[in-house]
């Protein structure tokens, strides 16, 4: 017996989305499934691409680009703007050690795309499939009613959601894609392992001193936190500088000139070097040179910064988070709702896209087998697959962050030698790149 009330609209899949862009897969097995997307923000219509670049950018891996192109969003991005990078140099402030990632045939390693561009491409693509996907903007779910664990005669076996304006929906599967403060996760009572790093990230758009080919991504590990320069165009790059809360506040509020000087010296200064580490590093480098005389990566310096785009300096706090469970009966968490990571590896959004790819694949197989989409049997398959991948990446990123947050000599030595050794072993580097490109 259904209770009397406003007419219930029933959907097969409902995704609750925060400002961060997500998307719905188009798949022939979902042909007659109804999908509803609840978007908290307003509809972002970009009439004309703005001249100024946005300060929030994401590094899109080739795997994510494949996903985006599989349903047509990548074409929209290509028509707007993006920047491919071919090399990545990561080095230490406390030593000469560095690691250089590139693909043998100089293929694109990844793409730097502004978040606004991605959002717009997705919105455009959603409009193209509006017969199957309904999007409700400025809507927020305020109450969730979960199905009984045991099938009971009178109660609905589906999830019911009530929105702020009073309308209710029922759905077979609720996907929570609402960011690291996920309402879906909290309402479902899923435990979240999380801690805050004592760091905030400062982002800005920087003008380079001179136009260059700019297809290299730079990252330097300072004791206070990593600073990264990501290419946006021949003359522009995006800055992501993770540092302590106080320093970040200072950076955001200081003069533009001082800020530019701070950025340049962060990349160029060798103040944190010590003789001991330099000698130890040189020793290993010599040994590596004996074993592998062919490949020698000399440390290159990133392009110098001339000025910063006014009003583009912003800071946001960093933390780590991982949900204990990604799925419950009729609920699945994807993206930041399930995991939150430090930006030092540029993997946050790519893990989210990986989640989407995996969930879509499992749901597609389930739909072709006539299964109820909210059934745990295939949702647990998604959870296992993604938890294995994400936990490894989260642990590695956290470890790197802690390892590089200190200038204590033993740890610096360890990481110097470790980095040099990893740089020397090409198969290992290739494995790392392959894992990160998925």
């Amino acid at each position, binding site marked *: 017996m259904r209770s009397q009330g406003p007419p219930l609209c*029933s959907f097969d899949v409902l995704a609750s989305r925060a400002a961060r862009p997500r998307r719905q897969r188009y798949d*022939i*097995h*979902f*042909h*007659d*499934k109804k999908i509803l997307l609840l978007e908290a923000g307003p509809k972002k219509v970009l009439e004309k691409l703005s001249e100024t670049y946005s300060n929030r950018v994401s590094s899109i891996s080739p795997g994510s680009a494949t996903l985006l192109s599989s349903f047509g969003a990548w074409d929209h991005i290509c028509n707007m703007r993006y920047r491919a990078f071919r090399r990545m140099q990561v080095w230490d402030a406390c030593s000469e050690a560095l690691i250089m990632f590139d693909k043998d045939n100089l293929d694109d390693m990844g793409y730097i795309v502004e978040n606004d561009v991605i959002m717009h491409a997705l919105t455009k693509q959603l409009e193209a499939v509006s017969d199957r996907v309904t999007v409700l903007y400025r809507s927020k779910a305020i109450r969730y009613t979960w199905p009984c664990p*045991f*099938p009971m*005669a009178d109660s*609905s*076996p*589906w999830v019911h959601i009530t929105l702020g304006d009073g309308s209710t929906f029922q759905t*077979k599967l609720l996907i929570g894609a609402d960011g690291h403060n996920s309402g879906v996760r909290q309402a479902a009572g899923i435990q979240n392992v999380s801690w805050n790093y004592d760091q905030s990230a400062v982002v800005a758009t920087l003008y380079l001193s001179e136009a260059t080919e700019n297809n290299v991504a730079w990252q330097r590990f300072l004791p206070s936190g990593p600073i990264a320069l990501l290419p946006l165009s021949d003359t522009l790059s995006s800055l992501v500088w993770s540092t302590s809360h106080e320093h970040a506040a200072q950076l955001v509020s200081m003069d533009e000139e001082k800020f530019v000087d701070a950025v340049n010296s962060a990349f160029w200064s060798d103040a944190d070097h010590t003789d001991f580490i330099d000698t130890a590093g040189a020793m290993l480098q010599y040994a590596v040179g004996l074993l592998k005389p062919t490949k020698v990566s000399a440390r290159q310096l990133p392009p110098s910064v001339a000025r910063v785009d006014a009003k583009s300096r912003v800071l946001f706090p960093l933390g780590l988070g991982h949900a204990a469970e990604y799925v419950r009966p009729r609920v699945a968490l994807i993206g930041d709702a399930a995991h939150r990571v430090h930006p030092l590896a540029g993997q946050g959004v790519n893990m989210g896209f990986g989640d989407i790819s995996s969930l879509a694949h499992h749901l597609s197989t389930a*739909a*072709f*087998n*006539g*299964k*109820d989409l909210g*059934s*745990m*049997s295939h949702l647990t398959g998604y959870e296992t697959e993604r938890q294995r991948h994400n936990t490894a990446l989260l642990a590695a990123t956290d470890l790197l962050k802690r390892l590089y947050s200190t200038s204590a000599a033993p740890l610096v030595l360890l990481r110097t030698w470790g980095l040099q050794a990893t740089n020397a072993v090409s198969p290992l580097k290739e494995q790392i790149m392959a894992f990160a490109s998925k």
Partner: protein
Amino acid sequence: MWGGGKLGSSGGWFLRVLGPGGPNTKAARPLISSAVYVKNQLSWMLQIKPGVFNEYRTMWFKSYRMTFSYLNRIKSFRYPWTRLYSTSQTTVDSGEVKTFLALAHKWWDEQGVYAPLHSMNDLRVPFIRDNLLKTIPNHQPGKPLFGMKILDVGCGGGLLTEPLGRLGASVIGIDPVDENIKTAQCHKSFDPVLDKRIEYRVCSLEEIVEETAETFDAVVASEVVEHVIDLETFLQCCCQVLKPSGSLFITTINKTQLSYALGIVFSEQIAGIVPKGTHTWEKFVSPETLESILESNGLSVQTVVGMLYNPFSGYWHWSENTSLNYATHAVKSGVQEHPMSAEFAFKGETEELQANACTNPAVHEELKK
């Protein structure tokens, strides 16, 4: 039901009654095993009362193995197996009805008593879907079985009926147990799409044979034939309701030593994977028997493939080995056209031969010239 519990003298010889006794026995009842040798039948049935294992366990297993090895040596192969008592008009077994009545509300608990049946869907739905898709030239994306009429016999709570409905077919599910149909109705009522595609009825197959003769593209009898009394009548009815060239899908359990040991002793009594009393070994059907009955009713068996359940992971797998569970796909013959086309082919051939005979002398003449 298979009341014939005569302890034939030769039969009784192998089996020893393991009576109560021994200091530590917890058994209230003795563990009795008896073999019944029914004259004129070279089939053996074993009735083992569920009992408590005591320290005579090893002896029991040994005598049991001995029994079977003896049986195998004297049993002859390929004996057409017929049931002793088949005088009933219905194929429904009232004892079975009672067993299922007790569990009628538990169908849709995916981690509950019917969990193995839920996970069996991962095998049987693709099996049915793929074999039916072969007969559909262009299928609709999202509704691959659209336009097909399927009958699910012994649908229970609708575990298999609902996926087939979701794939676009119009399904009628029938079951003799009233409570099962109630549960199935209730469950499908929440989904408006399924509500329209699926229809449930409380009846047995024989009751609807008249009105639904030759109306179904496919009939599915999954985990059913091991519960019916009269297998021949049942399969005959299945054939009658099928359209010509329609498909019959059966999944059931083979009648072997292994299926006894694993399917009854292990699954029901030791591990509790299947509720006690669900299956009776005597009613298990071997693929050969099934095939012979199907062939005699005009159905040709296309596929027989084994299924294996992993109790630890809870998943089923396809297997070459059919000695436990297996699935069969049979197709009803397309009747009218075949004799005609054979005739035409024959005629065509004779005409060709005559034509060749005509040209040959001409060729010879030319060569001679």
